[in-house]
């Protein structure tokens, strides 16, 4: 349960940065924090107490595998999610750099041209 709580808190802290921080770089950092939290949560969801990693490198594991390993699917999903996360971060950072090159500031208040 501690894992769940911690990862949810991580998500929330990340979201907090998105909601409150006025620096766009900080917002991107918050998003990446959120990603970390989400990944942690997913992996914790796949965990089964007392099981081993889903790598069948010992003969013993070959039989009756499902009673011996943790759920590999969430891990596979997280693998994808992490890569996607870094991709989003990269694009986000390029957008931030582009924004900075336009106005020379990272303050969100300067980026309110589009509204209403």
């Amino acid at each position: 349960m501690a894992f769940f709580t911690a990862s949810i808190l991580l998500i929330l802290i990340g979201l907090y940065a998105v909601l409150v921080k006025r620096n766009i770089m900080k917002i991107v950092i918050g998003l990446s924090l959120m990603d970390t939290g989400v990944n942690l949560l997913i992996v914790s969801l796949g965990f089964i107490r007392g099981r081993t990693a889903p790598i069948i490198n010992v003969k013993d594991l070959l039989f009756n595998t499902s009673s011996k390993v943790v759920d590999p699917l969430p891990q596979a999903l997280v693998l994808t999610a992490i890569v996607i996360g870094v991709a989003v971060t990269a694009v986000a950072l390029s957008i931030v750099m582009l924004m900075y090159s336009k106005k020379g500031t990272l303050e969100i208040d300067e980026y309110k041209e589009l509204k209403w």
Partner: protein
Amino acid sequence: MILEYFMIFLLVLMLILAVYVVETKDLLAAVIASGFISLVASIVYLYLQAPDVAMTEAAIGAGLTTLIFIIAIRKTERYEK
């Protein structure tokens, strides 16, 4: 049992670091700290029997992400107003 307490310690550490990341004015420090969070997370993944994820998180989350953040901060500004 000790392992579990250690894990809880790590989780708390992550949260503290996360708060630091959010609240510090120094973006570079924040990025380094968030990389550290990923590193801690990868240890946690090991505990959760997810070596693949642990590797990925260490390589991508802690390494690559931090790196591109640092580059981006170098190209923009280091301190939050």
